[in-house]
């Protein structure tokens, strides 16, 4: 029996040490209740020790986050006015020097260990989490789905151009939940539903889930509305450019304008695609074009296939845009640019627009990527 003494003794010592560590951890890391003062307008009492992002979300305050708090998107920036220690190495890559000087932090990296004061945009007080049910899923192209979510009796108030975040649950090999942002394509007057256009991105976690796993009737959490993309209340000509699922905010904005009778304003909408199979909502846009005298829809194909019967514009959307600004639009009218697309598309359109006299500060964009 002597041979058992050593292993049993080691086991007992390990168990005692484990218990001591557990107790010490609970005492040392017990921060108790702490207060988060938001903009000097609202104070939340939360359990100390958790991340700022999750502490706020638990109390119904949602900071935008494209990665669900993993520290890999840099979206959840907010200004912390209290001293919470130096910036962490996990935050630095996502912050500019100016932001760091203003003590902008990533809410998913900062722990709330004592009372703190933070500043966030006031609009975030209106952001809510919606428990939705998928009402319909429709293929609008070979790689873009239109998904309509029923808010199950709740309503959403938003300005056309805003976005929501889908909470993607674990699926397949993906073990954790994550979030991704998508612009709403539904009109603000459609308060009981949210419509999104989601293009399949190869290897993309959220888009793969939507395209291959999501079914009608499934329950999905959406958080929103977020963003500041919207039409400005001026009488300047709106020059809008999009491609692919960048259609979403413009569908919302254009049908909202039509519904509200804002028909005196001149609007040009350029939509770029590669082939006819990448075009969608063509009939809806052409109908809007025919009913609204000052609205001009210009779809363009970069690689039209022979025999596809395409008689519209051809070429890269930036080349078509350049030609139309020079040849078709009135030079004496003020113009504003509205863009939705990848950073590369935004940069290319910025160049064309500024070269044609549209000031950079009057070019607004929804950088959905």
């Amino acid at each position, binding site marked *: 029996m002597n041979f058992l003494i050593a292993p049993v003794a080691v086991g007992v010592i390990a168990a005692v040490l484990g218990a001591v560590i557990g107790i010490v951890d609970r005492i040392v890391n017990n921060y108790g209740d702490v207060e988060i003062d938001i903009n000097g307008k609202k104070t939340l009492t939360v359990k100390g020790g958790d991340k700022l992002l999750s502490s706020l979300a638990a109390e119904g305050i949602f900071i935008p986050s*494209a*990665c669900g708090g*993993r520290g*890999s*998107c*840099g*979206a959840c920036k907010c200004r912390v006015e209290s001293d919470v220690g130096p910036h962490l190495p996990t935050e630095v*890559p*996502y912050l500019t020097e100016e932001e760091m000087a203003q003590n902008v932090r990533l809410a998913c990296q900062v722990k709330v260990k004592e009372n703190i004061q933070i500043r966030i945009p006031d609009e975030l007080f209106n952001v809510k989490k919606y428990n939705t049910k998928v009402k319909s899923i429709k293929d609008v192209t070979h790689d873009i789905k239109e998904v309509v979510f029923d808010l199950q009796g709740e309503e959403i108030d938003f300005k056309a151009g805003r976005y929501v975040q889908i909470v993607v649950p674990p699926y397949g*090999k*993906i*073990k*954790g939940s*994550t979030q991704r*942002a998508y612009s709403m394509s539904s009109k603000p007057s459609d308060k009981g539903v949210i419509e999104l256009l989601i293009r399949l*991105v*190869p*290897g*993309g*976690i959220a888009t793969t889930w939507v395209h291959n796993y999501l079914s009608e009737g499934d329950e999905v959490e959406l958080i929103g509305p977020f963003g500041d993309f919207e039409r400005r209340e001026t009488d300047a000509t709106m020059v809008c450019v999009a*491609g*692919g699922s*960048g259609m979403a905010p413009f569908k919302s904005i254009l049908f909202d304008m039509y519904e509200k009778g804002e028909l005196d304003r001149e609007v040009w909408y350029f939509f*770029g*695609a*590669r082939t006819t199979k*990448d075009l969608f909502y063509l009939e809806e846009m052409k109908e809007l074009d025919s009913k609204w005298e000052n609205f001009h829809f210009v779809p363009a194909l*970069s*690689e039209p296939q022979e025999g596809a019967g395409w008689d519209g514009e051809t070429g*890269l*959307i*930036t080349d078509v845009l350049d030609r139309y600004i020079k040849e078709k639009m009135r030079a004496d009218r003020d113009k504003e640019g509205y863009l939705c*697309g*990848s*950073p*590369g*598309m935004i940069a*290319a359109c910025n160049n064309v627009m500024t070269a044609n006299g549209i000031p950079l500060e009057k070019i607004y964009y929804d*950088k959905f*990527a």
Partner: protein
Amino acid sequence: MKMSPELKKAQENMQPGVITADGFLGDEKRSLKDIIVRDEEEMRKYGLDYEESAKLLRELMEEGRKGLGEAVTVKERWLVQTFESRGPLPCPFEDGIFKKVTAEITDKKSGEKILVSDMAIHLMESHRFLEGIGSSFRLDPEQLKKVVF
């Protein structure tokens, strides 16, 4: 095979949920060192050079970017579509930060595809790591040979 502390740290960073939700190792259970050694053999088998492959993939991605998010035909052989996502990604070897730019490269004739990212090219060029079998962004030597050479 024994791993250096740097490789051990990199392998930790490659686990699902650390840098990306699904990680860099795919379904592989073997060590990072073993994966790299196995793939060096695979690259030799298909007559591929790491630097040359990285250079060609980077050129194709650059051409794809001209499509501004739409697919674009490159040199009449490939269809390249690039996608850009929000935020940067740190390299699991902790030697750089990369934009989340990915491209799907399709050989128009055969229909064979390969998915490539700025990060995947860096991993191939600087660390001889092609990502594990089962990873979406694995630059599988056989597929690489079929699609881009």
